[in-house]
């Protein structure tokens, strides 16, 4: 039994290789891109809208609302990145109902890649909002003593993000695989349904955590105002 789909290699040439994770991801990308193209081909802006358009609008506006709730005042700036994170992870989890399918998120390489993307995106968004100096200054907050701890926190949370998603996705598939060998009928179906729910929750958690990190990095500290007593009050 393969622990990860990285180990199933279809083609290799030196450092370059084509394993199951990459192929599945391409398939997922193809499905999502084609699906998006097909679904958004006939969007209407007036009158009665189709159910597919309604569903898509609900998904997008919900994502927007969630990103805003996290603390990002302009959610559309981050929608492409965070929304794609959620949709990719959720689609990967949703497809576990297809027999023989192994989600790319089951691979630690994929989750690490996503975590690294977040790890890179956080300072990029922070620098875009606050400038390089402003962003780097956040590492010394509240005091310079906190600098090493902040750096460790930054690295560890990225690691935690990757491992959390990997562990949860892999465990679900593993449990289904193990249970399939023990009780081949009813129980694996229930566990698959549970795995679907777990996958959705993980997608949500991953996205929200990424949003929170970005929000923390882009939060511009407000200048502290000192109240000045009015002349009337003074007199």
């Amino acid at each position, binding site marked *: 039994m393969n622990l990860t789909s*990285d180990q199933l290699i279809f083609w290799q040439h030196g450092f370059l*290789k084509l394993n199951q994770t990459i192929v599945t*991801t391409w398939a997922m990308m193809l499905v999502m891109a084609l699906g998006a193209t097909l679904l*958004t081909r006939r969007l209407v802006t007036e009158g009665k809208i189709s159910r597919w*358009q309604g569903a898509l609008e609900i998904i*997008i506006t919900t994502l927007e609302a969630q990103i805003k709730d996290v603390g990002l005042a302009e959610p559309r700036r981050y929608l492409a990145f965070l929304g*794609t994170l959620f949709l990719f992870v959720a689609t990967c989890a949703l497809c576990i109902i297809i027999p023989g399918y192994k989600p790319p998120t089951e691979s630690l*390489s994929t989750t690490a890649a996503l975590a690294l993307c977040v790890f890179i995106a956080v300072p990029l968004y922070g620098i875009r909002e606050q400038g390089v100096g402003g962003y780097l200054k956040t590492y010394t907050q509240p005091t310079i003593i906190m600098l090493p701890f902040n750096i460790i926190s930054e690295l560890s949370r990225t690691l935690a993000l990757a491992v959390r998603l990997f562990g949860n996705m892999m465990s679900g598939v593993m449990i289904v695989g193990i249970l399939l060998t023990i009780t081949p009928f009813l129980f694996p179906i229930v566990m698959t349904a549970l795995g679907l729910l777990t996958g959705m929750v993980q997608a949500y958690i991953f996205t929200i955590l990424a949003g929170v990190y970005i929000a923390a990095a882009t939060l511009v500290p407000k200048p502290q105002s000192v109240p000045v007593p009015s002349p009337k009050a003074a007199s």
Partner: protein
Amino acid sequence: MLIDWFTVIAQMVNFLILVWLLKHFLYKPILNAIDTREKGIASKLADAEAKVASAQKQQADFEAKNKSFDEQRDAMKAKAEADAKTEHDRIIDAAQKQADGLRASEAAALKDDQAHQAAAIRRMAQDQVFAITRKTLTDLASVTLEERIGEVFTRRLGEMNAKDKYEMGAALKSSPEASPLRSAFTLPDEQKTAIQNALNETFSAVIRVRYETDANAVSGIELTAPGQKLSWSISSYLDSFDQSVAAMVTQETKPEPAAAPAAEAK
């Protein structure tokens, strides 16, 4: 080793490509559609609000016009009622005046009729009196009425007091032409002669007399001189008769008494 670094890099690239793909083929079209629809809805809402405001304004205008119309209608109604009352009063007043005029003219006509009737009766009575008297005198005393009237006139001349006699005589004498002696009937020549003699004798002069007959104006015999008149007539008899006739006519024209109140009460 669980992490394959080539796969990590490849997945990072894949993810970034997916971000780009979804951004262009999913988020942008959907967000554009949502924005366009929201703008359309906002535009429609603004349009609806404008229409509501317009409708409210129109309603307010309509209510104001209604109120104004009601006020005008009330004012016109009041004016029409006042005009109608004035016209009513005017018509009633005119009718009353017309009725009064008719009543007055009827009363005048009645009075005129009564006068004419009285005059006719008087005339007829006079003729009857003359006829009866003439017949009576002829039958009983073999004397004509004319003779008797002439005698009475002659006797009156003689019975005149001095003053009247003087004034009458002066008037008769000073008259440049013959004084008219009118009678209701033609006097016989004997009577004329007797009267002429009596006049000459009474006034001690030749009195020129012109005999005239006027049955309508004179009810006896009448001598007229400038400023003086001597006459005998049956006017006194006729006056009393006239009063009796007038009393009779008045009684006839009186309205019937109303029914007894007692009968009405029943």
